């Protein structure tokens, strides 16, 4: 047995210990289930699948005994509640799916199951992933373990809170405009969103199909590399899934930083950034410099248009993707209705929360006749300009760095009445989704209130490996990622 408590150990360490029979998967699973129960006030989980987890753990123990273990066999994890899990509630944080027991597994879930990972449960999230604070969840807000009066970020807020409080070694998330990286930053975690097309979207309940991408929230880049490697790959069930071979991310973690060029866009370091966030990010970049990285200024001149562009395209796709929730084949159905249209309107009126309705309406509006060209087409043209900016910038650098968010975690309730203020949280992250690039956030310090700050790294298309290796090398020299919230040690 090792000295460090089980919940502070890395996936690699667990895998080694499980193989050496230092402890069993069943023990490990019980350990995390107990922590989840003790931390119920964080509201990080919508569903805890304890019984199923113990069964999976027993299977994993048998598999290890038979010498058939993979890097993930017996490793507990949690799935964001928008990944379909067979036989388990998959609510997407919404009342409209509050009774939806998925009849199938998402490809991501299936891939991780097959490698022997143990599902602890399904994590809380903003309804249909629409939000940056986890406050739009039908199940109430998840809380930030660093300060329970603060939001954990969103939309993968439950996943972030769970990993930060060490209730699970790792959790899946999804990122449409920053929904992995922003909560990772606000909770002091490593969060990686791969290139669009790397991770199958099959079984991931769609928010905005051309932007959504599954990824990982973890304690460190090494864990992220192992899980992302297992999640990625071609899936015939997703027409946007890439055929490109997935590099062996864990094996590539040790690439040296020396010789890498880091681009610093002036647009990411403006007056809108909280000065303590700026200080931490500057220090992190200086650290990377000491480790041998070169820095160059780059320009992303259209980045200011990212938010407006995103808030046309994402709602447009969402209004379409959410049309299927009509109370006919699954999910919530209004109890009383006069006729068919009334059934639709009441079911959807009752089933969706205010933010989701807002986005559905914005989406329907920008696609409707007479407005399409001015809004939707205009946004698509801007999207190309934004993507082209990145292409040009990557001619001069290997990685782009900046703050993940303009400020650290804010108080629950602080921004929930002002959608526009909420949207501005994703100002640095959503352009990455528009361009389909990989992005990652790693812990880079704390503000004076002890709230974590995230460093945002953006990579070339399909170059997750470089991002992960820069993050890993940085984490070998720093210990921000090893800090745990008080009370969760």
């Amino acid at each position: 047995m090792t000295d460090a408590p089980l919940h502070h150990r890395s996936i690699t360490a667990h895998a080694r210990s499980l193989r050496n029979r230092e402890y069993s998967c069943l023990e490990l699973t019980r350990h995390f289930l107990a922590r989840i129960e003790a931390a119920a006030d964080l509201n990080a989980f919508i569903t805890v699948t304890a019984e199923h987890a113990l069964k999976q753990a027993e299977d994993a123990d048998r598999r290890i005994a038979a010498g058939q273990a993979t890097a993930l066999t017996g490793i507990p994890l949690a799935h964001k509640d928008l990944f379909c899990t067979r036989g388990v509630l998959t609510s997407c944080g919404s009342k409209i799916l509050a009774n939806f027991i998925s009849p199938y597994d998402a490809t991501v879930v299936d891939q991780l199951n097959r490698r022997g990972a143990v599902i602890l449960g399904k994590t809380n999230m903003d309804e249909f992933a629409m939000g940056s604070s986890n406050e739009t969840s039908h199940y109430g807000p998840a809380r930030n373990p660093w300060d329970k009066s603060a939001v954990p970020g969103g939309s993968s807020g439950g996943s972030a809170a769970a990993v930060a409080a060490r209730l699970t070694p790792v959790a899946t998330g999804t990122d449409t405009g920053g929904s992995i990286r922003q909560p990772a930053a606000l909770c002091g975690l490593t969060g990686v969103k791969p290139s669009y097309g790397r991770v199958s979207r099959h079984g991931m309940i769609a928010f905005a199909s051309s932007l959504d991408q599954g990824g990982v929230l973890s304690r460190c880049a090494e864990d992220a590399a192992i899980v992302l490697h297992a999640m990625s790959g071609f899936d015939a069930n997703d027409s946007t899934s890439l055929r490109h071979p997935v590099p062996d991310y864990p094996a590539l973690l040790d690439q040296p930083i020396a010789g890498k060029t880091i681009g610093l866009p002036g647009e990411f370091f403006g007056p809108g950034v909280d000065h303590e966030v700026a200080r931490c990010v500057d220090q992190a970049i200086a650290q990377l410099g000491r480790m041998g990285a070169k820095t160059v200024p780059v320009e992303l001149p259209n980045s200011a248009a990212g938010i407006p562009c995103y808030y046309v395209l994402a709602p447009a796709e969402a209004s379409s993707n959410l049309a299927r929730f009509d109370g006919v084949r699954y999910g919530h159905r209004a109890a009383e209705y006069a006729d068919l249209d009334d059934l639709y309107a009441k079911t959807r009126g009752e089933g969706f929360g205010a933010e989701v309705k807002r986005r559905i309406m914005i989406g329907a509006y920008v696609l409707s006749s007479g407005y399409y060209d001015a809004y939707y087409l205009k946004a698509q043209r801007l999207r190309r300009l934004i993507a082209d900016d990145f292409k040009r910038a990557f001619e001069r650098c290997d990685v782009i760095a900046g703050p993940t968010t303009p400020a650290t975690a804010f108080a629950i309730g602080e921004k929930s009445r002002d959608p526009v203020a909420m949207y501005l949280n994703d100002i640095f992250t959503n352009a990455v989704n528009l361009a389909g690039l990989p992005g990652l956030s790693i812990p880079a310090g704390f503000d004076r209130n002890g709230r974590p700050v995230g460093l945002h790294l953006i990579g070339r298309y399909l170059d997750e490996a470089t991002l992960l290796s820069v993050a890993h090398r940085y984490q070998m020299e720093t210990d921000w990622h090893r800090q745990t919230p008080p009370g969760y040690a």
Partner: protein
Amino acid sequence: MPITREQVAHIARLARLAMDPAEAEFHAGQLSRILELVEQMNRIDTTGVAPMSHPQDAALRLRDDRVTEHNRRDQYQRIAPAAEHGLYLVPRVIE
């Protein structure tokens, strides 16, 4: 461009969202603010720029014409709000 309560009611109807006047009024204010944000797009000239609908420049992959999905009606209808004789039930539809 501010959005009126009437426009909200129209969009809500298009999107099949039941909405009482107070809710429509509330959303009218919020949607107007969002559109104001969105209209910042107009500060950038996009003349001659081709719309980009997808982050990849890939061609659609075409699948072989094979039947691999088989009957799972019972599992699917177990979660249906109303099904009978294998049919999903809805209020009478008049064409």
